[in-house]
C-alpha cells in the first residue's frame, strides 16, 4: 500500500498509512475496537486522498503525471491487449525505443498501437531517453500509420513524453522535419486516429503522434507547448519551486484547461489518487473511451475522415478581427 516515492502533497496520506501499518502490526484482529479504529483510519485515508486529488494545483498535476509508478505505454499494452505484436524500426536508420509501435486489439477492435515509452528502470529509461523520441521514432510511427491505413486498421496513439529529444544526432537527422512530416501526413491519413495523452504531453514531441480525429487526456496528465520548467527558465528567468508553479498555472496545461480550449475532446477519469494507484482501473477507463470512439469513427467513410480532422484543427486558435476583412477566404 505504501508508495515509497512520496509527493509532498501526499505526506498527510503517508502518515495515515504508517498509522494503519503500525496498528495492523501489533493489533488483534478479533478485537472489535481495533477493527473499528483501522476502518476509521482507512476511511479518513480515502477521504483525504479524494480531497487532495480533487484539488491538485497545475504544478502538482505535473508531478503526478511524472510519478515514477504511473503506468506507461507498455503497461497499458499489457493491461489492454492479450496479443500485442510489436513492430520495430523505421527502415531507414534504426529502431527508436522511445516510440513503441505494433498491432494489437483494444477490446475486440484490431488496431495499430503507437505510443511514447519512457522506461521504468534506469537502463530502460536511458535506452528510451526518458520518452524523448528521435527523428527515427517519429518516422517509425509514420511508417506504421501508413501501413494501418493500407490495411484499414484504426490508429490508437498514447502520448507520454517530456518532448522530442534535443541532441546533435537528432538535429542532424532532421528532428524538426520528422515531426513536421508527421503533422502533415497524419492530417490526411484515411483511417480513424484516436489519441490519449496518458502522462506528459510535451509540445511538438507529443503532437507528432497526436494529430487525431479524437483526442483525450487522462485526468492528471498535462499537455502544453513547453514544460513548466522550460517556460519558467525563459519567462521568469529562472526555474525554481515558485516559478515552476507559476508557469504551470499560466500555461493552462491541465486536462480541464485543454478541454476548455478545445484542444482535447474529453477527459478520461483516473482512479481516486491517480492512475499509479490502480493501473488496471485506469486502463479500463481508457479502453472504454477508445472503443467508444472507434465504434463511432468506423461508421464514417475513411475518405471523409481527413476533411473532418482538418476542420477539427482548423478552428483552433483565438484572435480578434479588427475590421471587415479586406480580402480573405470568402474571395
Amino acid at each position: 500500500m505504501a508508495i515509497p516515492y512520496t509527493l509532498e502533497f501526499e505526506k498527510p496520506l503517508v502518515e495515515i498509512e504508517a498509522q494503519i501499518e503500525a496498528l495492523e502490526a501489533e493489533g488483534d484482529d478479533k478485537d472489535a475496537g481495533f477493527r473499528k479504529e483501522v476502518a476509521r483510519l482507512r476511511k479518513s485515508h480515502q477521504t483525504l486522498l479524494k480531497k487532495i486529488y480533487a484539488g491538485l494545483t497545475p504544478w502538482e498535476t505535473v508531478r503526478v503525471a511524472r510519478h515514477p509508478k504511473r503506468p506507461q505505454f507498455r503497461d497499458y499494452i499489457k493491461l489492454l491487449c492479450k496479443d500485442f505484436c510489436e513492430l520495430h524500426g523505421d527502415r531507414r536508420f534504426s529502431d527508436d525505443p522511445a516510440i513503441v509501435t505494433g498491432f494489437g486489439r483494444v477490446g475486440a477492435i484490431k488496431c495499430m498501437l503507437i505510443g511514447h515509452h519512457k522506461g521504468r528502470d534506469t537502463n530502460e529509461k536511458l535506452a528510451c531517453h526518458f520518452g524523448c523520441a528521435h527523428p527515427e521514432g517519429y518516422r517509425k510511427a509514420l511508417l506504421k500509420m501508413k501501413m494501418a491505413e493500407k490495411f484499414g486498421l484504426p490508429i490508437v496513439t498514447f502520448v507520454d513524453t517530456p518532448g522530442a529529444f534535443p541532441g546533435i544526432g537528432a538535429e542532424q537527422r532532421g528532428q524538426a522535419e520528422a515531426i513536421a512530416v508527421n503533422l502533415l501526413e497524419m492530417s490526411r491519413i484515411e483511417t480513424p486516429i484516436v489519441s490519449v495523452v496518458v502522462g506528459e504531453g510535451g509540445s511538438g514531441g507529443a503532437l507528432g503522434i497526436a494529430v487525431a480525429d479524437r483526442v483525450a487526456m487522462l485526468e492528471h496528465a498535462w499537455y502544453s507547448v513547453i514544460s513548466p520548467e522550460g517556460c519558467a527558465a525563459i519567462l521568469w528567468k529562472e526555474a525554481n519551486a515558485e516559478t515552476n508553479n507559476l508557469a504551470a498555472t499560466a500555461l493552462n496545461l491541465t486536462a480541464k484547461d485543454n478541454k476548455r480550449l478545445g484542444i482535447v475532446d474529453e477527459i478520461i477519469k483516473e482512479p481516486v489518487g491517480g492512475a499509479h494507484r490502480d493501473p488496471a482501473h485506469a486502463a479500463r477507463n481508457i479502453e472504454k473511451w477508445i472503443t467508444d470512439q472507434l465504434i463511432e469513427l468506423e461508421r464514417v467513410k475513411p475518405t471523409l475522415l481527413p476533411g473532418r480532422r482538418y476542420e477539427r484543427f482548423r478552428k483552433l486558435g483565438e484572435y480578434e478581427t479588427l475590421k471587415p476583412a479586406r480580402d480573405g477566404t470568402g474571395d
Partner: protein
Amino acid sequence: MTQITSKTWSELKPVGSTRVPEGLWLRCPACGAMIYRKQMEANQHVCPECEHHYRIGARERIRQLADDGSFEPMFDDLVSGDPLKFTDLKGYKERLAAEQKRTGERDGVQAGRVFVKGRPAMLCCLDLTFMMGSMGSVVGEVVTRSIEYATAHDLPLVVVSCSGGARMQESGLSLMQMAKTSAALARHDDAGGLFISVLTDPTTGGVSASFAMLGDIIVAEPKALIGFAGPRVIKQTIRQELPEGFQRSEFLLQSGLIDRVVHRHELRNEIARIIDYANK
C-alpha cells in the same frame, strides 16, 4: 518546444546584435569592419565586406522579394486576444501592446499577393521584430489562410520563416497552430500546389517543426540558425560543446535537410526560377 526569447537570445545570435545599431556607421558583428549604414542597407542589409546577412523585418523582406508596388496585403486585420490571460513577469496583453507600439505592426507576420519578377505568388513573411516572430494564434491563422488562398487560386506559395518557435503565452493554442498549418499544407500538396519555404536566421522550435520544413523546395540564407531545439537546450541536455557551424544552413545542407543555400541577393531570382521549373 524550445523557444528563443530575450533570455537565450544572446547565446543564439550568430555573432552580433539583432538589430542594426543606430548611427551613420556601424561595426559589422561578423567581420568587425566599420561599414557605412546606408551602404549596408542599399546592399539588402548584407555586409559589403564579409557578406554577413543582417536580420530584417517582414516589410523589408517583402520590399526585397516583391516587384515594386505589387504587394497587396491580406489578412492584416487579425490581432491576438489573450485567451489564457497569461501573465509572467509582465502580462501578455501589455507585452503585445508594447510590441505593437514599438513596431507599428499588429503581430509577427505579413502576408499578401505579390509578383516576383512578374510571376504571381502568395507571399507570407514572419516578422522577427515582433516578439521574436513567435507563432501564436494570429501567426498560425495568417499562415494557414495564406496556404488556403494559394491552394484555392493555384498560386505558388512562398513563406519566409524567422522565428523562435511557438508562442508560449498562448500555450496549447500555439502548439495547435503547428498542426493547423501543416494540415493546410497537406491540402496544398494534394492540390498539386508549389510551396517554397525560405529559412532565415533563426528558424527554430514550433515553426521549424511544422510548415518551415515542409516546403517542396527548402532554401536557406547563408549561416542561418535552423533547428528544432535551441543550442542552449541541447548543450544542457548532452553536456558537451556543440560542433562549429552546428545547426547552420550549411550544416543542414550537408545533412541533406534543405535543397539550397541562397545568398540574399539571389533570393528573388531563385524563387522566380523555381516557380518556372515547377510550371506554376
